[in-house]
Structures are given as structure tokens and as C-alpha cells.
């Protein structure tokens, strides 16, 4: 009975539906699911930023700003140095710095964390708009790397093994984060700090230090996400380039119950609905208004949430600065 949860039922349903469509038209279904993974990966990675922070008790609504700034830095450093690896490195560095900025505001200054995140968003919009110059290009995007042998698998080849290096790395980060959070000492301590910081403190964990480290790592993941967007997925940068992905990621984090795999699944579902919405327009199979197709991803999200989510509980100490009790 343990495996008959609503969530597993949903996964089986989605898999069955995909298998059905695949049997009807293999190449289009493969294209749709592979597009869905491209939609999903940046959202899932951005959700990791949120999970890393909130699991240790810091609310980060500045994900959007982190993505925007790092996508900007990735693009312009790549363009100025003609080296996309330097662009990637710079964006990860800037992402971590923004993480540290959040940590300074939230942990050291004990500021309201919503305000702290908002500051990062405003700063990002302002700076990237101000410093933006048009007409620059990067030497190339991170090229697609098809993994030998695996790429020849039907369906799974194009869906999972025909992407760029940052895609694979991003997926690796998500899976590692799951293992790290739930199977390592660091993960246990991080979660303890997010749930009950005073107990963690009593047990000898430095709450402030762990929060600093985790928020900085989260920022670095945000930097990677920005690089993925501007150096691999698109190959350019425009003002307002991230178009709200950082906020969608927050919703996916909650939807995925602050669990990296949950958020990945949620992002994949969102990506699937977007790709299918596109496909409905590509095929013009049915004459339904595009407005309706446009809202499909959101309606489906609501339905799935209603079926599968159940009770969702955030980390208990989220958003609260930790004040050591006086001895």
C-alpha cells in the first residue's frame, strides 16, 4: 500500500499518457518531451536556489535578481573576453556574491528577509538595465554534446542525452543536492538549522556560519542557472531576460515540498504543459483559442496541486533571524 500514494498514481498516469502519445507519433512526442526538459531545467535549478536557502531558514525571493544578474554577467564577460568559460566562472562568482549579500542582510543585520530579497531584485533590474549595451555577441554558445551510445536510445536519447554541458551539470547539481540534503551530515545540520536553530546551536552547529555557507552556495547555483540561460539555451542577453523564472521557481519549490527531486518533477510537469501548449498551436489540431492554450499550464498546475500536494509545510524557522539566547 505504501507505493499507492496519489503522487505515484500521478506519475504513472503521466508516464502512461506519454507512452500512449509516443506510440501514436514517436518523433513529435520525443520533440515535445525534449523541449519540456529544456523548459524545465532552468526552472528546476532556480528552485534549488530557493530550497538551499529555505532549508536553512532563509527566505530568498531574490532568485529572479540573481538569475538576471548572472545571465548578464555570463553574457558580457564571455563577450568581452571571447571566452565562455570565463563567463561561466564570473557568473557563478557573482551569484555567490549576491548570496553573500543576502546572508549579510538576513543573518548579520537580521533584516526582514522579504525586503532583503526585494533589494536584490531591484538592484539586478537597475544594474543590468543601466550597464546593458546592445550589439555585442558571444563567440559561441555551449555546444550541444550528444552522449555517445546513450543518444541513440529511442525517446530517452533526445530527451536526456542530447543537450549542452551546462544541462548535464545542472542535472548533476540537482541530484547531488538531493543526496547531500538527506544523506549527509551537512544536510542533516542544514535542515536542523532550518527547523529548529536553537537545538542545532545547542548541538554545537554554528547557525550563522552554516546559513552563510548555504546561501552562498545557493547563489552559485543561481549563477549557473543564469549562465545556462544566456550561454547555452539562448546565446544572447536582453533586458528583463529572465522573464519571471525566479518567481516561478519559488512556486515550484513549494509544489515540490522543498525537496530537490520534488521540485525537479514539478518543473518537468510545468515544462511539459508549456511544450504541449506549444504543440497544440504547432499542430493546429483543434481550433481552440490561443488564450485558452496559454492558460493551460496554469490550470493543469492547479489541478495537479489539488490532487497531489496535500499538506505542505515549510521549514519551521524559515524567515526568522536566529538570536542566541543570553546565557
Amino acid at each position, binding site marked *: 500500500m505504501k507505493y499507492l500514494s496519489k503522487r505515484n498514481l500521478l506519475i504513472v498516469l503521466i508516464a502512461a499518457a506519454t507512452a500512449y502519445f509516443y506510440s501514436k507519433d514517436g518523433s513529435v512526442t520525443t520533440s515535445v518531451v525534449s523541449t519540456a526538459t529544456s523548459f524545465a531545467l532552468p526552472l528546476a535549478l532556480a528552485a534549488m536556489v530557493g530550497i538551499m536557502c529555505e532549508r536553512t531558514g532563509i527566505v530568498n525571493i531574490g532568485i529572479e535578481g540573481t538569475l538576471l544578474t548572472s545571465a548578464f554577467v555570463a553574457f558580457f564577460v564571455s563577450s568581452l573576453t571571447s571566452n565562455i568559460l570565463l563567463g561561466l566562472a564570473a557568473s557563478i562568482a557573482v551569484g555567490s556574491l549576491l548570496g553573500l549579500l543576502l546572508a549579510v542582510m538576513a543573518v548579520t543585520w537580521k533584516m526582514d528577509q522579504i525586503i*532583503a530579497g526585494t533589494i536584490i531584485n531591484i538592484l539586478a533590474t537597475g544594474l543590468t538595465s543601466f550597464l546593458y549595451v546592445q*550589439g555585442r555577441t558571444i563567440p559561441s*554558445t555551449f555546444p550541444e554534446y550528444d552522449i555517445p551510445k546513450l543518444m541513440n536510445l529511442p525517446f530517452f536519447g533526445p530527451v536526456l542525452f542530447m543537450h549542452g554541458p551546462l544541462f548535464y551539470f545542472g542535472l548533476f547539481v540537482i541530484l547531488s543536492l538531493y543526496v547531500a540534503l538527506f544523506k549527509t551530515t551537512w544536510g542533516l545540520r542544514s535542515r536542523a538549522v532550518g527547523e529548529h536553530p536553537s537545538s542545532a546551536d545547542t548541538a554545537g552547529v554554528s547557525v550563522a556560519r552554516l546559513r552563510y555557507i548555504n546561501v552562498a552556495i545557493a547563489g552559485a547555483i543561481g549563477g549557473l542557472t543564469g549562465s545556462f540561460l544566456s550561454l547555452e539555451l539562448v546565446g544572447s542577453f536582453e533586458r528583463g531576460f529572465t522573464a519571471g*523564472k525566479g518567481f516561478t521557481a519559488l512556486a515550484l519549490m513549494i509544489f515540490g515540498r522543498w525537496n530537490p527531486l520534488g521540485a525537479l518533477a514539478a518543473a518537468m510537469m510545468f515544462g511539459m504543459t508549456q511544450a504541449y501548449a506549444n504543440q497544440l498551436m504547432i499542430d493546429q489540431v483543434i481550433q481552440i483559442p490561443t488564450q485558452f492554450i496559454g492558460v493551460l499550464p496554469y490550470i493543469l498546475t492547479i489541478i495537479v496541486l489539488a490532487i497531489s500536494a496535500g499538506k505542505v509545510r515549510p521549514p519551521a524557522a524559515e524567515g526568522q533571524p536566529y538570536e542566541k539566547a543570553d546565557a
Partner: protein
Amino acid sequence: MLKRITATAAALAIATIGFSAPAQAVAKPDCSKAKFKIGVVTDLGKVDDKSFNQSAWDGAKDGAKNISGGCATYIETTDSKDYAKNMALFGDAKYNVIVTVGYLMQDASAIAALKYPKIKFIGVDQNNSSTAANMTGLIFEEDKSGFLAGYLAGYLTKTNKVGGVLAAKEVPPVYRYGQGYINGVAYAAKEQKKTIKTSVVYHEVGATMFNDSPWGATTAGQLLSQGYDVIFGAGGGTGNGALAKVATKKGMLCIGVDTDQWFTVPEAHPCLVTSAMKSLVSGVSDLIGLAQSGWSGGEYIGDAAIAPYHDLASKVPAAVQAKVNAITPKVLDGTVKTGVK
């Protein structure tokens, strides 16, 4: 307590930098002492957006140059709630001409024109529903340039599948581009007596519809993976994202929008065969000239066209170039109907 106050002050200071920062990457002239003042209010977008707002701004600068004592400056709108406020900044400063850029400002412009009867309003992409004589709507027949782009695409496709990645259908100019494109492909298909599949994907309507490059790129990737080999990208950053994506796939072709994007989206050079244009620059500058003398209000129809092939001319066979040259005047004068209302 003191610590918190310092923290809040520091935070505010940082926020202020953020707020004041969207200052000008593009120099903003000071027109306060000029004889003939022209103010441009952009739509949600910047004067260097590589397409729509930039062309309108270039047109205003050209127009100002042709007038003695002419001076043009601009305000970038960052929130659609600010349209009226931004127009009022120029209105209260007694500007001679206010150029409002974008279909979304249509209603706000009509209201402002009544409020400032002495100022001439040029509403770019706006149907003129106002009775005010000081208001002129500058409109374009995007369906004509979309049709020409589609006609060309219909002759260039090798897989007989052509696609489009556009901003929201609810924005009339975007719809006219898209529908014109579809009908242009169909016209070319009929001439060649073959079947060509045309698929146009629109972004959902909303605040991000003109700057969602990742969506544009991913959606273009979806079309490419299904064998579409000519893709029309139209709608600010959303369309530019599609162009950038197509450029990374060898041998694929893309078509830009609004201006000749060869000059504004260099990353698209490997694929950009043409752009479906509307002559915003000459339209705005002509109307500014008319504002000084010969103004008639109502609606003014600007020119539509497609851009030169530039480096990709070799990809367009001479016979196809001849066909496009032959049909262009017919589409523009209406002999060949685009089929878009």
C-alpha cells in the same frame, strides 16, 4: 536597535541605487530650452530594444533634425500604470509633439490628447479612435510585410515546413504579422503547387510577452526538432531569442521583425535572411515634419517592406528574388490581398 537602523539605512541606500540606476545607457538630451520640443514615451521597453521602441526613437531624432530648433528626448515606461504620468511630464512642460509608442498606449494617448489640446500627439501603432484634431495614429499594414516574409519563406523551405515564434496574438500588430506570414506562405505554396505546413506559436499575453528570450529560444528549438527550416521570430526579446536559437543550427533560416534586424541582432547573422519591416523611422519623422506644417490628424499609414538579404543573398536563388521583387509592389498596393483584416 542601532544595528537594525544602520542595516535599514544601508538597505535603503542600496535600493536607491537600484531605483536610480535604470538611468540612461542611451544619452537623454535636455530639451528644456529648445524651440520645438519632441517627447517620446516608450512602451514597456527601452529606446535601445533593437526593434520597436528604438526605431520610434530614431524617427523622432530624425524628425527633430529636419526642423529648425527641433530637439527630441524620451521617457522609458517601466510600468504600464505610468503611461499617463509619463505623458503628463512632457505635457506639463509644454512640449510641441508627444510621440507615444505602442498599441497598449492607445487609450492613454487619446485621453492625454484631449487634456493637452495644444500639443500634437503621434500614436505609433495606434488606431485613432479620438476625435481630437491634435491626435494622429501612425499605423502600419504589418500583414503586408508579414505576407512578403511568408511568401519568401514558402520558396526557401526545403522541408516544406515553416514556423513562427511570436509575442501575443492579442496585440494586433503581432497578429497581423503572424496571419500575414501564414497567408504569404500559403500563396507561395499555391504558386508552386505544393503543400507547406505553417505553424505559428504565440506567447501567452502578459507582462513578459515581449522579453521572454528563453521561451522564444526553446520554442524555436521545438520547431527545429520537428523539421521546420525557416522560422519567423517576432516580438522584442521573445522573437530575438528565437532568432538566436535558429542561428546555432547550421543551414536553418530565420526572419526578423520591425526593423532590419541584421543591424540590431548580430548573433542572428548565420540565419537572418530578411526582416518583415515597418518603416517606423520614416513614419515618425514624416509625422513630426507634418506637426510643424500640414498636420491633418486622423490616421497615417506608414510604409511596409521586407529587408535586404545581406550576406544570405546567396541562399536566395535568383529566380526567387525575382518572384519576390515582382510580387512586392502588388502586395503593397493591394492588388494581391493579404487576407488579413
